[in-house]
């Protein structure tokens, strides 16, 4: 569904993203993890057309979309959400979602009906008349998701949609996301919440300082020493391995 080929982006002297490649197969949920400042959101921006890569190409559904503008990429079925939520503050929840629905529907009445339907999917049907500016952070994240959904995407790019949510809210969103995947939408998400990454993803990529350092099934990736080092610092992998050896020796000693 999505193929990113050796994409690079520099900001001044900083290599935000260096020769990064990845593949998101159709119908799967793929996650992108990595420490803060690794370049994950930049990568999303490059894929969805908000930034132009200095080199490399992005292919969506077989087509080269590298230099297209975000709105035309959206129309082709690739939609992104924003890490810092961007609601249409003065509009109601229903009107917000309807904006997305208008991507495919021309008539106002149709768009508003679709908005109600999508709101039900994400559990917001009671909040339709509320102004978006008055929602809690969880509500706004949900709205962001609903808006993207209403454009009838083939591929959804979710940028830290669970940041700031509590455990219950996270579980709800995980269910919703699974539901979205079951309906045929491919999902590519950036996440820090590890439980969600583990339970949702079929495949994981790890980005650190603009370079892809690992990829694979979530379980193997998270025990990859390079990945641990990226998050916890140099030497952390060894220390963790040492602790594990000590505790397993203790277990066998006690046994």
């Amino acid at each position, binding site marked *: 569904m999505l193929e990113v080929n050796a994409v690079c982006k520099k900001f001044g002297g900083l290599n935000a993203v260096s020769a990064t490649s990845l593949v998101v197969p159709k119908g799967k949920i793929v996650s992108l993890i990595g420490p803060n400042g690794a370049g994950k959101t930049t990568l999303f921006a490059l894929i*969805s057309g*908000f930034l132009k890569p200095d080199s490399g190409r992005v292919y969506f559904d077989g087509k080269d979309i590298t230099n297209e*503008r*975000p*709105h*035309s990429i*959206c*129309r082709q079925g690739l*939609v*992104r*959400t*924003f890490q810092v939520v*961007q*609601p*249409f*503050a*003065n*509009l109601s929840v229903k*009107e917000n979602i*309807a*904006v*997305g629905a*208008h*991507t495919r*529907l*021309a*008539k*106002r009445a149709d*768009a508003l009906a679709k908005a109600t339907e999508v709101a039900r999917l994400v559990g917001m049907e009671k909040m339709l008349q509320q102004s978006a500016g008055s929602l809690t952070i969880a509500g706004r994240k949900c709205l962001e998701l609903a*808006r*993207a959904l209403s*454009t009838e995407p083939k591929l959804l790019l979710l940028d830290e949609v669970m940041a700031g949510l509590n455990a219950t809210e996270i579980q709800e969103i995980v269910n919703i996301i699974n539901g979205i995947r079951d309906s045929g939408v491919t999902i590519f998400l950036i996440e820090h919440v590890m439980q969600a990454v583990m339970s949702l993803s079929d495949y994981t990529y790890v980005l650190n300082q603009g370079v892809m350092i690992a990829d694979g099934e979530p379980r193997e990736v998270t025990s990859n020493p390079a990945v641990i080092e990226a998050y916890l610092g140099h030497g952390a992998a060894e220390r963790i391995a040492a602790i594990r050896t000590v505790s397993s020796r203790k277990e066998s000693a006690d046994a």
Partner: protein
Amino acid sequence: MSNRVRLIGWCTFLVMLSLIPLFITSGRWIDFLEMTMFVAVLGQGWNILGGYGGQYSFGNALFFGTGAYIQALLQFKFGLSPWFSLWFALAGTALVGAMVGYLSFRYGLRGSYFALITLAFAEAFHVLSRSLTAITEGGHGVQLTLNQNPDQAISTFQFNFAGDFLKAYGFYYTIFSIMLIAFCAVWLMERSRFGAQLVAVRENEDAAEALGINTFRVKMGAICFSASITAMAGVYYTQKFLFIEPGIAYGPAKSVEALFAPIVGGLGTVIGPLLGSFFIHGVGEITKEMIGHVLGNRPGVDLILFGVILVLVLAFLPRGLAGLVEDLWKRIFRGRNA
């Protein structure tokens, strides 16, 4: 307030407005209402790009002046019928709007920078209209021939020498019809996909772009629409006063008048420009009366007041008078239509 109630309310108001001339004979009141409606149309034009689109133009005189000039020049130079030339005025001004819009939006100008460039364009046209005397008659302005034949009142679109009814109310109903057309057009826009997309662009351009909206095209549509409506006010002005010159056409006065009414009345609402225009002109007239008795008739009083009202509304009534009416309604009928 439910949509139906709102609609009935404003329709009643408009019906009243259309029937007023039959009950009032004072020329002064008719003039007052004509001017109020004229500014309402000017304001509605600004409202499309500013209120709904969130792009504040400080140079809408550009559209007013171009509409007025095209209307005047086509009659003056080529003897075209005013009913014919007005289409050129609207189209020509829309084209000017497209040019300004293309340059501004293609280069990503927003906020203060957009306001500045609209100012620059208005001023540029001001200078051009004064200097290109071969085209625009320069500082002399364009004076249209007065039609004194009552039978030709309608064909020349001049009512000063028409039969009794047209003479008294011709221009009143002209501006009333223009206002009706403009307001209906905006009402329809509000309920269309274009309207929803325009408002989305105002609220958050990046999010709108991410949701498939071609923000450039939407903004272009808005500025052309805004230009045409403002041009309609220009056409009316030319027909009513039969004279246009660079200062009136492109001077800052019209640019400023255009934004007062929608801001005071309520940005991004259909009725805002009319409410705002009524309020500020009403207050202006009353003030002029009172001050006039005390200090004699001196220019500037009403504008001081307009400026003060503007600042007060911005400080305390962000949603304008329309917003105030909504809030009061909710308070009176609390719980009824939550």
